[in-house]
């Protein structure tokens, strides 16, 4: 069992045998990245909680008793005394299969194809998803929307192989402020945002909102509804915010 340090306590652990300082409970993946180690990942972002869905960030952890196990690093808490091994034969083998599975979900995604090529993933063994929408169900959009934006506009529906990321009842959701955060974090860029005729549309969620126009430049800058949403949430916003894009306020 993990020792009874309070979360946040400084601990020492090892990466590939070399000693490092860390913080008990921190995400191992984030810590590895901070020390400059490359570990691929698709469903993790520092701004949101770990989810562990994409299974790409695999590492091999040796515990204090010398037992080895394969685990994802994004949701693995840094703890005293462990040794973290990267790119062991088992890690490489399982990561390849994981990438092969991901690629079959999003066969057209340039990001995934590049990643698969980089990791020598064999092609053509799995039947690609015919109806692929390039969504790999990493859940980043939903976590950003709920944890950072606070809009709760999207969620996973159903379970198992029927699982999908969608809006309630697959309908346009008035809770969506079209901020575009989901579009930004999506690793396969499968959500899509379009701006035309003074309106912004989040393509995947079918949400269209008129844009506020900057009085300084005459250009549309952000959905009017978004500004109103935050004004309500924060108990009022400076008038300037409504009239001008950020650089001109």
């Amino acid at each position, binding site marked *: 069992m993990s020792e009874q340090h309070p979360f946040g306590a400084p601990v020492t652990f090892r990466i590939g045998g070399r000693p490092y300082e860390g913080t008990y409970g921190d995400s191992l993946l984030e810590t590895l990245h901070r020390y400059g180690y490359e570990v691929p990942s698709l469903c993790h972002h520092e701004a949101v909680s770990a989810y562990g869905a994409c299974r790409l960030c695999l590492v091999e952890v040796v515990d204090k008793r010398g037992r080895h196990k394969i685990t994802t690093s994004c949701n693995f808490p840094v703890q005293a005394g462990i040794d973290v091994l990267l790119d062991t034969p088992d890690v490489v083998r399982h990561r390849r299969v994981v990438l092969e599975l991901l690629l079959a*979900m999003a066969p057209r995604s340039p990001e995934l194809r590049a990643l698969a090529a980089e990791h020598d993933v064999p092609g053509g063994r799995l039947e690609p998803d015919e109806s692929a929408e390039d969504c*790999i169900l990493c859940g980043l959009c939903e976590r950003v929307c709920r944890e950072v934006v606070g809009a709760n506009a999207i969620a996973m529906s159903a*379970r198992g192989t029927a699982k999908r990321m969608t809006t309630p009842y697959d309908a346009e959701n008035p809770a969506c402020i079209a901020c575009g955060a989901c579009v930004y974090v999506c690793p396969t860029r499968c959500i899509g945002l379009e701006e035309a005729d003074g309106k912004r549309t989040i393509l995947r969620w079918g949400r269209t909102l008129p844009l506020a126009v900057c009085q300084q430049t005459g250009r549309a800058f952000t959905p009017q509804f978004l500004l109103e949403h935050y004004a309500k949430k924060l108990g009022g916003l400076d008038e300037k915010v409504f009239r001008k894009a950020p650089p001109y306020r």
Partner: protein
Amino acid sequence: MRARLTSPQALEKLRAEIAGRRDPEKPVLSICAGTGCVAYGSLKLADAVREEVEKRGLGDKLEVRINGCHGFCERGPLVLCHPHGFFYQRVQPSDVGEILEQSILAGQPIERLQYVDPVTGARAVKQQDVGFYKHQMRVLLEYNGWIDPTSIEDYIAVGGYAALAKALSTMKPEEVLDAIYKSGLRGRGGGGFPAGVKWKECRNAPAPDGVRYIIANGDEGDPGAFMDRSLMEGNPHLVIEGMILGAYAIAHPGHPVGYIYVRNEYPLAVERLGLALEKARELGLLGEKILGTDFGFDIQINRGGGAFVCGESTALMASIEGFVGEPRAKHIHTVVQGLYNKPTNLNNVETWANVPLILTRGVDWFTSIGTGDVSKDPWGGSKGTKIFALVGKVNNTGLVEVPMGKTLREIIFDIGGGIRDGRQFKAVQTGGPSGGCLPASHLDMPVDFDRLTEAGSMMGSGGMIVMDDSTCMVDVARYFLHFLADESCGKCVTCREGLKHLCKIVDRICAGQGREGDLELLDEISLTVEKASLCALGQTAPNPLRSTMRYFRDEYVAHIRDHKCPAKVCKALITFGINDKCTGCMVCARNCPTGAITGERKKLHVIDQSKCIRCGVCQEVCKFDAVDVA
């Protein structure tokens, strides 16, 4: 309403009072109202009994008790007549008069209703004479055929809550914990994790506000399993007493909070548990100041939505909190951070039911049953009994409780009465949908946690499905892979996508489109699903595939290389044909749903293969054995 009991001694006094009121010689008619018997009409039977008793004015001559599952569901409705212990099976409402007359009033057995052993022809007078029961060791299920689960008095009369009284009056919480630790009791819900180790970790986990959650897992999502259901419906106080003892051992002094998570498809279990909790509260066995001590604890019932994955510990806790039942990584154990991020001890219903028995009968009694040596290490063996739901192609299906270490052969042949219709044994799947399929060469293997795991299967929660030689093992793997792909929460890629592709490949093999390299690909993907999935659903999901590939590899090869299904199950790989035993009776042609069979009266018929959908109706309806499958 009865007054709360204010001391352990008061409980003993009540027990004596109940005993004093009861005449051990008074006849009791016990009617099984478990799931199987209800399906066979035991509720109608119970109505008929009540009616008949009233009509004959026998109200004070006997007691009629409606019980939980007696176990031998195959032969329901089941009836026991005490004090003689007569065992009757397949009892119909029309038999009631005779039973009351002959067996209750005159104390004579009724041969017609007795069980006759199909092999030896011997008649069974009592339950213990029946092969199905004779080879069992019914410890947890002992009182299922005796007590009325809605009566707390019945439970107290057979020694119920004595363990609690003993613990509260003579043992410190640590001593109770120590007893469970030393008993080597391992979790009956899946992984076989030693309960004592879990309890200790939970007790030692920091809990600033003293709250520790004590949960019973009654989700029981395995298809065909009804062990926990039968305990919850048949003897709910046993489970509750176990939980109260656990709360005392794990969280006293402090604030233990209890939940029983029951799947929504078990309304009777919910009702019986609810009633039992109410009665226990009335008597001061739950709530504040239990039995007048400073120990307090209460339990509430949480109904699950019926997803298999909600039986997984972290998904179950998410579900109680009101979130989607998705598991999370358990790198921080639930004993440290579980429900609402507080220390949480989750055990299976059957695990809890063992606790009172260990405390009343002693650690030595418990460790004398089972395999291995747990005196130094609770992982050192498998102690106590295990309940199995024995189903499939055996003669006697039902609920079976045996000591750990009984061999598969003893369970399937001595208790189960062997394979149905004189066919051959082919495989047994233990451990539910993600358990492995073991072949005949493993029949003499003792059944315990570690032997099953070594063999590529698992104990799971105790499902046991027996298959005969008409089963295609590739098809079996296909069936369970699809079940698990559907029941996966779908959160992580390896489980959701891995299972999806394993299904696709095996579907292809069963459809006669297997390719060279498929077996290697299946191996590769299933290994990653096992090693890299987030929760135990994915980590164990490849078991049915991997075990059948290990023990029945030649069947896979036959499908892939020769495009043959040796068991003649996979529809794409078989053809139906009519041989010269055909008399031209035209029955098959009339029943064929696609009109694929032609032929004149009294002349040999033929099947048009391009129209045949291989439904097998022709073979079923032919009286002359003239339809072959190749």
